[in-house]
């Protein structure tokens, strides 16, 4: 195997996952995310985009491959810490019962984030960028629309300042105006710190063009094409 590149933040080498019935779900996928890089992942439904994000989040047991963050291999005990640094935001946002505030506070109840707590000022300024008032924090999660839930899930991940965000169609439930607001929020988040990277699955090639330094296309469990930037 090749060693990870010097500036590579997240490096995946030949990730392989086979379903119980023998179908290849990930067929030796290699991928590297550099600091301050945004990569878009596109491809037809069922091509393995979500499974790749899940693999990068270490959610599924793989049949082979190597994953490194900042050059370090991840030990079993180190997985929760790794996941606090490489956060995968599911396409169908999942919120717990309670208010938006309860949802944003949830990660701080985990040991990985116990040293910090909910920063309402920071959230308020992010909400402003999305055209929402602070009162949004008191809304009940079950009353939110699909788009609003998606925003909460995104803010919940962003506030944790991970090194890498893995986003699965983060604007799929949003109207166009809110989509643009979310896109600029994501760009702003990337600019705040030069040691961040983002991998974003999208069906919208125009969005991929607007956000990404590099576009990766997947088909049939493999990466088939890389456009823009370094390979």
């Amino acid at each position, binding site marked *: 195997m090749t060693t990870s590149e010097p500036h590579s933040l997240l490096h995946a080498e030949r990730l392989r996952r086979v379903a119980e019935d023998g179908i290849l779900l990930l067929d030796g996928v290699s991928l590297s995310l550099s600091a301050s890089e945004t990569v878009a992942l596109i491809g037809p439904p069922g091509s393995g985009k979500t499974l790749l994000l899940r693999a990068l989040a270490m*959610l599924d*047991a793989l049949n082979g491959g190597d994953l490194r963050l900042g050059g370090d291999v991840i030990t079993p005990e180190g997985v929760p810490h790794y*996941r606090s640094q490489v956060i995968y935001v599911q396409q169908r946002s999942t919120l717990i019962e309670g208010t938006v505030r309860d949802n944003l506070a949830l990660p701080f*109840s985990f040991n990985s984030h116990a040293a910090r707590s909910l920063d309402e000022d920071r959230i308020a300024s992010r909400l402003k960028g999305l055209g929402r008032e602070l009162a949004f924090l008191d809304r009940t999660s079950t009353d939110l629309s699909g788009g609003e839930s998606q925003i909460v899930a995104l803010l919940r991940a962003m506030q*944790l300042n991970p090194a890498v965000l893995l986003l699965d169609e983060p604007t799929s439930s949003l109207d166009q105006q809110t989509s643009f607001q979310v896109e600029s929020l994501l760009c702003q988040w990337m600019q705040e710190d030069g040691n961040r990277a983002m991998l974003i699955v999208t069906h919208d090639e125009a969005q991929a063009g607007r956000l990404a330094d590099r576009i990766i296309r997947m088909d049939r469990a493999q990466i088939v094409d890389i456009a823009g930037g370094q390979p």
Partner: protein
Amino acid sequence: MSYHDLSTLDVTVAALLILVNGAISLALGLGLERRLLIAAVRTVVQLLLLGYVLKWIFGASHWLAIVGLMLAMSAIAGVSAVRRTERRYPGVWLNSMTAVMASAWVVLGVALTGVISPAVWSSSPAQYAIPLMGMILGNTLNGISLGLDRLTEELTSRRAEVEMRLCLGATRWEAAKPFVANAIRTGMVPIINSMMVVGLVSLPGMMTGQILAGAEPMAAVRYQIVIMFLIAAGTALGTTSAVLLGYRRLFNRRHQFLAGSIRKVRA
């Protein structure tokens, strides 16, 4: 107080009461006749068999026979607990068996050392150990099956929430804890409920039996109180061990949730 042995005729008359159930089923077209017949036959046959086994064991009174019978009872309880669940995972049978052993035997051990002293039961151990074990097992198996059922049901239907927690950096325990707690609570609720109403709404079978057999009501009540606490402890220990063992099977050491290993068995 006196004790009256029931004759075969007495028992037959009581058994004929099953005709009441049969008549209702026929009149309302419930279609339960066949099951009623099987249930009635099983009740008689299983209890008669138990009678013969107990008679033999009480007569033999060898500790190996007693332990053997209790092991068989425990194994049946472990299997029955899983058979009542709708979703299973590899290792669930062993989990259930371990949970039964770890709870019922411990509680029985406490009962036969701390509550009823060996001096009392050493002359006829089977007379104490087997009924107590039966009471503890019956309730423990109920708690285990409810707990395992709830655990696998919730983890399946709320998989996205479990994974969301993991994605945000939760350990496997932090991700599973709410569901583990719900499952243990579900397993323990029935015994808490019956402790709430015992003596008000329900007259426990064991106490009724003792009173029919001529025991002083207060003496029977004391036994019943002891039994309730033994059952409660057995259920708590059994449910908790089964659910925790299930959790260990369903989350690996890399903090991954093995959702794919849960299989539904009944439609």
